[in-house]
């Protein structure tokens, strides 16, 4: 909710919950194997990240070592998903400012990754590739060559986007200098993921607290210090290139051996916290088990929730007109048709706008 003084946004209060499905209560009613598929549906685009976090949690509690090959396959699928998520976002950002061609191209290139996903895991988006104790399907050499071919094509396409985006004046006119998030605010408000890295702070769970095969794969964390929407676009495009590098390395050094370990059904009592770098940022899950085959408490904090206070900081002090573009820039991963209530402190009246009405107002204001 925004408190506005004429055109300047004075205060922002976050009000969520329009896609609240009571997931955490549902976990307590499901066994661990069923929980596998529930955790994946928290967010359609970063399904693998959530499932990886869940599986790390349960395996840590069971104190089981999964085969090294499974670690590598998980890293490969996680990076493929990061590429698909970032490409999706580049397309949506293009559509957001009325450039449908970028949307069509980005989503056409994304098909390459989706076909690879269907080949490896059997499903384009909700892969259900993990199971407790490893991975459900092995990577055959034919799959590996198909991935390499796909990566070469994607590498060339992403380099094209990287070269084209800064030169595209109409895109830059809408993105440079919009939605500023200063580094000190980003840290204080605990922002995560590309939004944080676009403000120049080098934090990435894959490097700080490595899981699966990230401890062995060399990659560098991308940061830009533009602190605006434009640098968030560039961070994501660079991260696609980085993911391709990780994939090449992982495919190169894929160890042989089994892909899963048979495990008993029950999980010993205990508690554990696992953190994973989802495409949109750091994703943390807390699991408390009581020895039965159902978790006692399962807390999920998706990366987008951490970025909402940062959105508030970006918009506060800015203009009402920039709200729609800034919100789209953190790549919110939930239905973002949230209602926004405005209270104009001077006129002391408040009115409710849906996102589209807000956008229309923003364009109208810009017209003055």
């Amino acid at each position, binding site marked *: 909710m925004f408190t506005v003084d004429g055109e300047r946004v004075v205060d922002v209060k976050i*009000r969520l919950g329009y896609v609240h499905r009571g997931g955490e*209560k549902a976990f307590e009613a499901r066994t661990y194997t069923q929980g596998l598929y529930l955790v994946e549906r928290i967010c359609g685009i970063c399904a693998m990240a959530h499932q990886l976090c869940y599986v790390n949690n349960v395996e840590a509690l069971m104190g089981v070592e999964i085969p090294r090959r499974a670690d590598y396959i998980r890293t490969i699928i996680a990076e493929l998903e990061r590429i698909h998520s970032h490409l999706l976002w580049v397309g949506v950002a293009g559509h957001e400012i009325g450039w449908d061609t970028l949307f069509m191209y980005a989503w056409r290139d994304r098909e390459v990754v989706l076909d690879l996903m269907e080949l490896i895991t059997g499903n384009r988006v909700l892969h259900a590739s993990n199971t407790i104790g490893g991975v459900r399907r092995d990577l055959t050499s034919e799959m590996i060559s198909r991935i390499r071919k796909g990566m070469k094509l994607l590498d060339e396409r992403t380099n094209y986007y990287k070269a084209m985006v800064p030169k595209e004046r109409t895109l830059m006119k809408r993105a440079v200098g919009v939605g500023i998030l200063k580094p000190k605010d980003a840290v*204080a*408000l605990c922002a995560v993921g590309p939004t944080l890295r676009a403000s120049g702070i080098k934090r990435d769970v894959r490097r700080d607290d490595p899981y699966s095969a990230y401890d062995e794969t060399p990659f560098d964390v991308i940061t830009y210090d533009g602190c605006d929407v434009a640098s968030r676009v560039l961070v994501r495009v660079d991260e696609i290139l980085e993911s391709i590098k990780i994939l090449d390395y992982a495919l190169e050094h894929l160890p042989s051996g089994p892909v899963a370990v048979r495990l008993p059904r029950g999980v010993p009592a205990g508690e554990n*916290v696992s*953190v994973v770098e989802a495409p949109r940022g750091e994703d943390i899950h807390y699991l408390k088990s009581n020895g039965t085959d159902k978790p006692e*408490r399962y807390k999920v904090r998706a990366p987008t929730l951490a970025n909402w*206070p940062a959105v508030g900081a970006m918009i506060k002090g800015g203009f009402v007109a920039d709200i729609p573009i800034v919100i789209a820039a953190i790549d919110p991963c939930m239905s973002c048709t949230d209602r926004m209530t405005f209270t104009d402190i001077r006129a002391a009246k408040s009115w409710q706008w849906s996102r589209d009405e807000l956008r229309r107002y923003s364009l109208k204001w810009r017209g003055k």
Partner: protein
Amino acid sequence: MSENKKEQEIVEALKTKLGQSLLAARIQRPRRIFATVSPSALLDSVKFLMESHGLRHLATITAVDLGKDIAVYYHLIGGEITMNLRADTPKTEPKLPTIVPMIPGAELYEREVYEMFGVIFEGHPDLTHLILPDGWPENVYPMRKEWKTDAIKNEIAKALGEKLE
């Protein structure tokens, strides 16, 4: 395990700082520390961890209903160490000091714990619902163990005044 001396160091520092109000501390594995403190020592332990050990980033706040009281975990992350600081409050009237002045990012997490578990965070700038709708019936805290899903449904039906199928 000798190699996680940095974790040892933090636990030692916490012991000297808090003395007996540090109820328990253990290093579960490299880069993971669990520590339980009494609610009164919560504020200065968070401040201490932030300033002297760089644990600035609050990932989230998790609450767990233990039956008699509610355990509230503060997951602080700095560099590669993840510190899970736990403070318990009695379920009869759960109260905890807010850490929003120190970590502004905690505002949303505290609101979520408040509406799901009923933990009052004193001094919180604006402790209102974050996720649940406005018409949510008073002191129905859905994530508490005693609230089963159909009990919640009847409460909502009562509040809304018509039968939910």
